[in-house]
């Protein structure tokens, strides 16, 4: 299965980098040097957009989620996002559980925005980014940021070309941040983070303190590893700086990064500690392993070359959830280490911004209105819901004894169905109709609307809750969002379908991403570089994924990969 997937990836789902790089600009870092550098110019992108490097997709490092389950999860997530405040305040455990299982790739961008509190922040500070974006940055920071732009994810297609849209956007975000928090300015570790999501990172002293906390927790979790590090005078900042400052975004295989971030944004910083502890425990947990690295240098080398099997998505998530370290443990250790720190180093010189303590804490700390939480989709697809249009929240409340929502798998047809896919044919037609109806009423909204460029819009003019804005767009610089149309005549029954594509195009159902989790790449799928001449984005012949078609027995399936236990016992 895995191999098949790989085969498919390289043949259909991908775009050659040459197309991207060379047509984007002549200065492409991939241009003339690519041969010299040993990169064959016909590198293929993986499903996350990587063209090489250690974090490129490999079937072994990732978990495969069947399509039915993914669709099922998307429906659940859309409902959660629709009633976000209720879910967070009343059914947070369920939200957590769903984060632990992994957020569906098509909704990840939006879910992260909600989990991190960015949604409310953005609503309450309309135009803030635009304001910062239009200001000139401090030349000191601008210079430093510019030196780093091409050095973040050099193997990601978004960041591959010098001055390409990925690097431009990264610059704007980082520069805006230095203006937003002039006291903090730019720290190199922000860049990999901002390349995925903009957020507050700990200051340098804080990272050392985090190191001490990690060390103290390690003493409890895995004494042999602790003693070994102690014996060889390996201070935490020698191995954990990059882990923590970049929230593992440069360390783990990409599938695992996303899962860790799903949990991190939901449950806060304890997840980062747990990941660190799991890795240390796995790498240094047994006598044989410690024998193999007798010195300081050997040990540090070992910790820089983490074994793939320990970072494999399913394994890692399981280990993280099983590790008995709670948020309270982290808090307690934080207080103790802070006390020690003050004794030895004096008062901390930084005023660190509050640490991420999870979506629930963020929600309760930030006054918000329902209006702030309203989803503001840019693409509208009407879609008849098979049974009821009531939210899962309402439904589940009624039947509170049912732990799992009834299996909707067969009620929810695949919205990404292929033209050649016979099953959901009638629905496809309806989608077609409604989509074109919509189109005739409103001009097609922006293809890509990133939260960075959200135009100021009056909330009242928004469509109720209908569509999925795609993941943060890599190319906001190229598609300035047009003013939002206000679809006044709102349809009676509108349900969201996670699809991130332009209505103008979606009259044809979007080709099914060949990997079940491929939708993550929506940005790349639907928004090719403007000059791409060859690669058809909607390939005509796209055979149905045999794997998912051959897997209709959902209960069995669920067991096989919903490996996440029903809850995280160490809260």
């Amino acid at each position: 299965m895995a191999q098949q997937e790989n085969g498919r990836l390289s043949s259909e789902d991908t775009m050659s980098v040459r197309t991207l790089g060379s047509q984007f600009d002549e200065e492409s870092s991939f241009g003339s040097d690519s041969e010299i550098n040993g990169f064959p110019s016909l590198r293929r992108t993986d499903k996350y957009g990587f063209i090489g490097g250690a974090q490129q997709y490999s079937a072994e490092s990732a978990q495969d989620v069947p399509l039915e389950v993914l669709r099922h999860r998307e429906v659940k997530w859309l409902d959660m996002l629709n009633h976000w405040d209720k879910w967070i305040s009343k059914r947070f455990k369920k939200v957590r559980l769903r984060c632990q299982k992994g957020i569906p790739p098509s909704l990840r961008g939006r879910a992260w925005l909600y989990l991190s509190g960015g949604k409310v922040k953005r609503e309450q500070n309309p135009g803030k980014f635009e304001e910062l974006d239009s200001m000139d940055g401090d030349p000191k920071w601008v210079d430093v940021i510019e030196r780093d732009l091409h050095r973040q994810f050099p193997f990601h297609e978004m960041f591959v070309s010098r001055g390409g849209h990925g690097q431009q956007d990264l610059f704007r975000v980082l520069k805006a941040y230095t203006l937003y928090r002039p006291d903090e300015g730019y720290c190199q570790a922000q860049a990999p983070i901002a390349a995925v999501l903009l957020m507050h990172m700990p200051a340098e002293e804080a990272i050392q303190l985090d190191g001490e906390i990690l060390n103290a927790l390690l003493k409890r979790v895995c004494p042999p590893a602790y003693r070994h590090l102690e014996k060889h005078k390996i201070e935490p900042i020698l191995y954990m700086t990059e882990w923590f400052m970049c929230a593992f975004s440069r360390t783990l295989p990409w599938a695992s990064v996303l899962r860790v971030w799903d949990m991190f944004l939901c449950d806060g910083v304890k997840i980062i500690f747990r990941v660190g502890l799991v890795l240390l425990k796995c790498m240094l947990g047994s006598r044989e392993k410690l024998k193999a690295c007798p010195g300081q240098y050997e040990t540090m080398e070992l910790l820089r070359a983490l074994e793939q099997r320990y970072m494999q998505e399913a394994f890692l998530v399981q280990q993280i959830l099983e590790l008995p370290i709670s948020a309270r443990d982290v808090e307690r250790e934080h207080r103790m280490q802070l006390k020690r720190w003050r004794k030895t180093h004096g008062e901390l010189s930084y005023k660190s911004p509050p640490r991420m303590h999870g979506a629930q804490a963020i929600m309760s700390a930030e006054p918000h209105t329902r209006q702030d939480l309203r989803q503001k989709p840019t693409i509208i697809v009407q879609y008849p819901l098979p049974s009821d249009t009531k939210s899962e929240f309402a439904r589940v409340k009624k039947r509170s004894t049912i732990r799992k929502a009834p299996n909707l798998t067969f009620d929810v047809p695949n919205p990404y169905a292929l033209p050649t896919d016979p099953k959901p044919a009638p629905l496809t037609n309806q989608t077609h109709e409604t989509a074109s109806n919509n189109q005739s009423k409103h001009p097609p909204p922006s293809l890509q609307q990133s939260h960075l460029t959200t135009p100021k819009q009056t909330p009242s003019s928004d469509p109720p809750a209908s569509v999925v804005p795609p993941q943060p767009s890599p190319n906001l610089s190229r598609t300035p969002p047009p003013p939002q149309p206000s679809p006044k005549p709102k349809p009676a029954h509108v349900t969201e379908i996670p699809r991130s594509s332009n209505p103008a195009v979606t009259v044809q159902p979007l080709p099914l991403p060949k990997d079940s989790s491929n939708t993550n790449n929506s940005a790349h799928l639907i928004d090719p570089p403007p000059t791409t001449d060859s690669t058809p984005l909607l390939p005509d012949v796209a055979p149905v994924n045999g794997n998912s078609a051959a897997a209709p027995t959902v209960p069995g399936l669920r067991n096989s990969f919903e490996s996440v236990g029903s809850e995280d016992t160490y809260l």
Partner: protein
Amino acid sequence: MQKEHLFKVLVIGDLGVGKTSIIKRYVHQIFSQHYRATIGVDFALKVLHWDSQTVVRLQLWDIAGQERYGNMTRVYYREAVGALIVFDVTRASTFDAVLKWKDDLDLKVTLSNGKPVPAVLLANKSDQSREGLRSQIPKLDTFCKENGFVGWFETSAKDNTNIEAAAKCLVEHILAYEENITNNTDPDVVALPGYNNNTKERVRTRCVTCSKF
């Protein structure tokens, strides 16, 4: 009998001057435009067959260049016996920062006799210096003498210029110091582990340095 030495060598300098590129070139004989910015610290090991009797293992510590990691360098510098300080010939500001790095180094680590660790200055990206800091180059001899560098080299990680030579120069100085130490040690005296022979000396040097400021 073969002698084996293990030396910890720091590679420091401003952000983006090419520290990682120099190390990758030196250790793995490769060059790429696609290195990621170093966050924290990175490591590499180079084994040199110095002569028929001597093997030198160089632990190269690649230290993140951004200024704000500054207060973490104390941990990174510990027990280093040599340093390559790098600047970018196309950017004057990185040259201005060289002394800042040198001071930081001397402040946070010294040899067992209290002397500063040998440091070699690398003027990197020489392949790109059409004009740049060219005018500075002749002055570097004096600059090095005045500021306690044991030597300087115009290097290019891209073209593989002078990197081996710079490393060789550094190792020579480290070895010379090592021999000096061994020769001066009375063979009848056994140094107990944990006892620092040079404590007094170091204290004295520190005081001298302090009084200078």
